[in-house]
């Protein structure tokens, strides 16, 4: 688990408060590192079978995929239905160069990032002035059209897709990584997840992240304070694309195949449901959401069509009943208890204060 606390350095003449804040910071850092190590070793502890590793790698990949949509949903308040394009671009950027020229994973990853940024720039410019459902309609239509082009273009493998993607090969200078099985790919998938989470955490605190929130919450105020709302929205959209694309990139290596099924509504619904289930503007929302949903699909599956009904129902019920997501639901449930404890502490303090004043009297 990674915790992000808004720790504020308090500088005081005393110095003890600053030190305690520093301690708290290093303690949370330590907890983060321990949490990461535990999660990293978890599949091995759970038996280390191919199925377990497969599940963990898929969770990591789909979490990163949804994280791209989360950036747009949480910081622009817009629903992008076109992120399957970037997801597929990542997959095809891994598939075509690696099968045609046998290039390594770094080159295909660079291609995935470059092409997704290019596609997002084009789509972002076209939808620059659209908002709400028109934005969603346009991005959705774009996804359907790119799917149709992919399906009908032989150079992209057509309806059959591209098979025989070689194992992921990443030269690290001193040592090379080559991996095919899910167990091999787990370190890469985990690293990709951490990198993406780190990137989004950085984005949240960045200038652009703050500006995006301001534009979402009060666009006229943002504009009157000199912000170009269109520019901010465009940049956030472009920034979100390579995250989803890199997930698609690794997905291609995991399956050793890409095809037009990457445009399937499953991925779109998965992206949205995982975020809505847990809540927006929560860093780990997509990770937790994807984990819960994939556990259902893997261990409590009721068949492909049945799982569709489950996924759709989760999405509908969450928005109708608890639109703020599970995390805020739980927080709201325990908040009264916390408040009660604080009141008790306050009362205790008051009592001791009174005792003290009585004594001094």
């Amino acid at each position, binding site marked *: 688990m990674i915790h992000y606390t808004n720790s504020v350095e308090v500088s005081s003449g005393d110095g003890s408060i600053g030190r305690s804040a520093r301690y708290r910071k290093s303690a949370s850092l330590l907890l983060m590192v321990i949490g990461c190590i535990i999660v990293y070793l978890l599949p091995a502890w759970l038996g280390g079978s191919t199925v377990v590793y497969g599940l963990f790698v898929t969770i990591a990949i789909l979490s990163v995929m949804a994280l791209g949509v989360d950036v747009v949903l949480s910081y622009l308040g817009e629903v992008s*239905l076109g992120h399957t394009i970037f997801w597929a671009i990542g997959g095809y950027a891994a598939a075509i160069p690696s099968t045609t020229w046998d290039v390594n994973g770094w080159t295909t990853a660079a291609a995935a990032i470059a092409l997704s940024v290019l596609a997002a720039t084009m789509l972002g410019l076209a939808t*620059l002035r*659209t908002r709400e459902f028109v934005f969603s309609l346009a991005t959705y239509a774009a996804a359907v059209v790119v799917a*149709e082009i992919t399906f009908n273009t032989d150079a992209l493998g057509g309806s059959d897709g591209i098979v025989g993607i070689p194992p992921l090969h990443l030269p690290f200078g001193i040592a090379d990584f080559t991996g095919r099985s899910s167990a091999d790919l787990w370190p890469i998938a985990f690293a990709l997840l951490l990198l993406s989470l780190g990137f989004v955490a950085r984005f949240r605190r960045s200038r652009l992240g703050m500006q995006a929130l301001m534009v979402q919450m009060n666009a006229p105020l943002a504009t009157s304070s000199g912000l170009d709302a269109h520019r901010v929205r465009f940049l956030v959209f472009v920034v979100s694309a390579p995250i989803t694309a890199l997930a698609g990139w690794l997905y291609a290596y995991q399956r050793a195949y890409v095809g037009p099924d990457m445009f399937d509504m499953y991925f779109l619904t998965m992206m949205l449901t995982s975020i809505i289930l847990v809540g927006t503007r929560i860093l780990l929302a997509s990770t937790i959401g994807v984990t819960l949903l994939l556990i259902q699909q893997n261990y409590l599956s009721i068949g492909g069509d049945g799982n569709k009904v489950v996924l*759709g129902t*989760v*999405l509908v019920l969450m928005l*109708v009943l608890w639109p703020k997501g599970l995390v805020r639901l739980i927080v709201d449930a325990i908040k009264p208890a916390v408040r009660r404890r604080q009141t008790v502490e306050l009362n205790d303090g008051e009592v001791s204060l009174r005792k003290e004043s009585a004594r001094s009297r």
Partner: protein
Amino acid sequence: MNVAQQAINGLVIGSGYACVALGWTILLGAARLVNFAHGQMYMLAAFICWFILTRSGIGYPLAAAISIVAMALLGVGMQLMMGRLVMTQNLTSLMIVTLGFGYILQGVAGLLFGGAPHTITTELVQQKIQFGDVWFTSQELLIFVVTLILYGVVWLVLQRTRQGAIIRSVAEDPKLAQLFGIDSRSVYIAIFVLEAVLVALAAVLVAPRTPILTSMGFEEVIITFVIVVLGGIGNVGGALIVGMLLGLFTSFFGALVTPAYTTAAIFAVLLAFLIAKPEGLRTR
């Protein structure tokens, strides 16, 4: 190329597009609501009609009517669940909720009807009407005529009747309309039922022309989106014109260039339009 024949084909395709888009146009124009399950509702209506036709001795008109009634009931159910979101005009959530509904419908249809393609066979599809070297089927004539009548009736109701005025006032401000004694919630349910009925009607009319699949909802809605945006969000007349034009475009693009990339070409038109005129053809 037989220009007259392509023009006829274009008008038939176009009236099909316009017919499928009518429910969405009303929903958006009159109630400022969105429904991303539109395509899946079209699919489900077509499958219900197909199921009744193949499993019972009931004829096409009655099967179509049962399918429409079933969709109307579904519309009531969906709207009851979304009630709070609709009253607060939370468009972003509504969009995702209806997308979820669409996914559920696709799953349910998969469970009930399987994944294989089917065709709705009606007598009207087999009846050819020939004028010189152009021809069309009775089904196609029916689509064209019904679409024109539906658009005419909807336009008259919205612009010329008290019910239309009530719908428009609720769209403007549901809370304020309530203060004037209008039951906004019932009006929303009525509009949503109308959307469901219209999409079901479109499905039973248009779907017999092509094989039906439970996964077709995803593609089915895209033309509706293009019509709704190009026609000027919720503009009934605009939707009819844009629908017909897109039908002609589809027909001639397919004949002159390639049918495989027709949707892509239509989308290119949409993109160019969004850049040039993001607010659509809206004049009001």
